[in-house]
């Protein structure tokens, strides 16, 4: 390797970023060299996203320095980022989206090379992906959108990719596709590329990272080669003493009531039950939930008491009201309960929001701040609070834990179990097996149909995988 090759791609010296009084990042020193695969972990609001924006040139640091040796800026240095919130243009085709980030594609007939480049990149990372480069992005399921975004990140765009930042890249991918990605990351780093890998799935971080950086409250609290960390040690460094491996074995079987939900597909749920939907991502679970929810909620003669509420996984699309404050985002579900002669009781609204803020632990000083001032995980907590604060007896959750940190997850699990004992029914689609194992009953989906119904002793990762792949045996 030449000297230039082994020089760092990016160096941060005491870099800090403040937003008004908020110290999002408080003096971070870091350098990334070719061949590095950096795992970046930390709970929500620890400053991971801010660090990403500093490295990719999106923000200028408030203090300290960022240098890209041998290049003028991040783009020239070959720094790419793939974001947690999808940043594709949904109205354009897959190939056209490549054009957005690659201004090198010009002249008549630019589409042909664009198609070729994106198909090659997809083939390289996700062999057998089956994505048409001429498909409009909004016709693709969310997992395929994420695959496209990752492929664009790694694709040559005028400059070759040298450092790719992946922020929760596997959150919408099922296990098989995620494995393909991890394999690609390893080979990319082995051939002299660098990756910053941000994930809440610690297993994946251990699998790919050569070095792990733990971020807490805007500072690096630990930076060591992966081999020197244990899972438990890593979780402790992040500041959450989570019960990794102790297992959340369901407590004494809860008393569950009569059947409250029954769909044509065969999905049933009893009052007070937590029903899981599992299987590979994009096999009809989200559609089944959406259909169920719409059938229960879109009748305009139904009266004021909602039969069910929906917790969205795709926050920007289905969940957040981006222009509103945290308060208004949360209170919209219970305005009926606190109105007097059709007028909202402001004091009651405020009190109820403050109470939920405390119960669910939303990290903000003031609930009248805009909801977008929160980190992704905290926005998700707002959505949970919105759903739980309503009177609806059924809560439908469409992969709600995407990009939520370990500590928050434990809090929410406890809250869900608590609400279920009070008689609420939860329908919970999740791409993470660990979450599905929290449920009282699990339906495994395959190709849009239910391939198996599992009950407690059988809710294990093996049985779920079995049912996801072998329909005949399960039925």
């Amino acid at each position, binding site marked *: 390797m030449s000297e230039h090759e082994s020089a760092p791609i990016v160096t941060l010296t005491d870099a800090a970023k403040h937003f008004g009084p908020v110290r999002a990042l408080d003096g971070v020193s870091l350098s990334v060299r070719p061949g590095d695969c950096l795992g970046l972990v930390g709970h929500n609001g620890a400053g991971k996203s801010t660090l990403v924006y500093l490295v990719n040139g999106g923000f200028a640091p408030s203090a300290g320095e960022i240098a890209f040796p041998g290049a003028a800026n991040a783009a020239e240095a070959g720094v790419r980022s793939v974001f947690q919130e999808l940043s594709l243009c*949904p109205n354009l085709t897959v190939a*056209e989206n490549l*054009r*957005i980030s690659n201004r090198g594609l010009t002249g008549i007939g*630019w589409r042909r090379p664009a198609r070729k480049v994106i198909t090659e990149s997809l083939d390289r990372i996700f062999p057998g992906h089956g994505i048409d480069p001429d498909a409009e992005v909004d016709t693709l399921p969310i997992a395929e959108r994420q695959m496209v975004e990752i492929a664009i990140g790694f694709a040559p765009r005028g400059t070759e990719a040298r450092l790719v930042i992946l922020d929760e890249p596997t959150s919408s991918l099922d296990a098989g596709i995620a494995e393909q990605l991890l394999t690609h990351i390893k080979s990319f780093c082995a051939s002299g590329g660098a990756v910053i890998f941000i994930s809440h799935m610690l297993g994946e971080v251990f699998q790919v990272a050569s070095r792990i950086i733990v971020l807490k409250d805007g500072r690096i609290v630990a930076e060591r080669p992966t081999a020197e960390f244990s899972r438990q040690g890593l979780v402790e460094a992040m500041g959450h003493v989570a019960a990794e491996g102790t297992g959340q074995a369901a407590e004494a079987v809860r008393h569950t009531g009569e059947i409250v939900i029954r769909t044509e597909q065969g999905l049933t749920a009893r009052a007070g039950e937590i029903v899981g939907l599992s299987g590979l991502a994009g096999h009809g679970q989200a559609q089944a939930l959406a259909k169920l929810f719409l059938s229960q909620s879109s009748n305009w003669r139904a009266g004021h008491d909602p039969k069910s509420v929906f917790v969205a996984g795709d926050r920007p699309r289905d969940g957040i009201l981006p222009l509103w404050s945290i308060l208004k985002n949360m209170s919209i579900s219970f305005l009926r309960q606190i109105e007097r002669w059709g007028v909202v009781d402001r004091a009651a609204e405020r009190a109820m929001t403050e109470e939920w803020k405390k119960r669910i632990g939303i990290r903000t000083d003031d609930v009248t701040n805009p909801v977008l001032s929160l980190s992704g995980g905290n926005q998700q907590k707002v959505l949970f609070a919105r759903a739980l604060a309503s009177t609806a007896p059924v809560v439908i959750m469409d992969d709600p834990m995407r990009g939520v940190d370990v500590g928050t997850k434990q809090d929410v699990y406890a809250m869900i179990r608590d609400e279920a004992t009070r008689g609420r029914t939860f329908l919970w689609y999740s791409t993470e097996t660990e979450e599905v194992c929290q449920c009282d009953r699990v339906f495994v989906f395959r190709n849009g149909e239910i391939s198996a119904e599992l009950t407690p002793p059988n809710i294990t990762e093996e049985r779920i995988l079995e049912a996801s792949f072998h329909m005949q045996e399960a039925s």
Partner: protein
Amino acid sequence: MSFFSRYRILLPVISLAVLLAATFYMQPRAMSYFGLNLLFNLAVPIALATIAQMMILMVNDIDLSIGAFVSLVACVTATFLNDAPLLGLLILAALILAYAAMGAVIDALDLPAIVVTLGMSFVWGGLALFILPSPGGAAPGWLRTLMTVKPPFMPMAVVAAILIAFVTHMLIIRSGFGTVLRGVGGNARAISRAGLSVTRLKAWAYGLAGLFGVLAGMALVGLTTAADANIALRYTLLSIAGVILGGGEFTGGKVSPTGAVIGALTLTLAASFLSFLRLSPDWQIGSQGAILILVLTARLVFSRKGDAA
């Protein structure tokens, strides 16, 4: 996905064909070179104004000033461009730049386009009245010749519509630059993350809208030979209806230039059709609205079916 939601252009084409067939049934004499030109020649400025509106809708904004703007251009064309061509051209160029600046300001200051353009519509209207307090002026001879040219086989109006659709399709759908512009409507954050300036792109979109607005005003004067400060006020709503009728969406950067031109033709034809029905003019605006609702309902039904399938 259903056939109709995959090929969004089909529904506008079918609407136009049905209306055209009905018109020919009512008035067989319209089925001629001369008849078609009469039916459609006023559609040319409307099609251009519709394209201008489409540029704005494409970047998730809406333009409530296009009608007043086209009127102003018409007044400038019938006076300055006729009397002092160089000065006239300079004024028109300045108007296009003003439009581009309006787009940049809307994005840079994060203002709602609906408010800014509504305000600007009074500015354009005032300027138009200032230039031409009472109806009058004269069309430049070359413009008159251009708009009354008789090409072989197809009347001018049809040739012009095809040309406008082709040029804007290449510009907006095929070219890389047009793709980026549509991307602004789809996800402006993705565009700025890719290192492009959304403000500059919006200025371009508004500038293009200004350009097509200027062309619309000139075409209109070429047809009418004189101008009036209120000549094109109804274009604002017609152009929005035309874009939507042609398969465009209010948000999300989903537009179709070919569809927009077809939408403009459909709206023009609807007016003639209603006259052939001997419907009193009092009812015509309402009936035009009814036709619009009918087509949009059809689109909704098909797209619902598409989602269910």
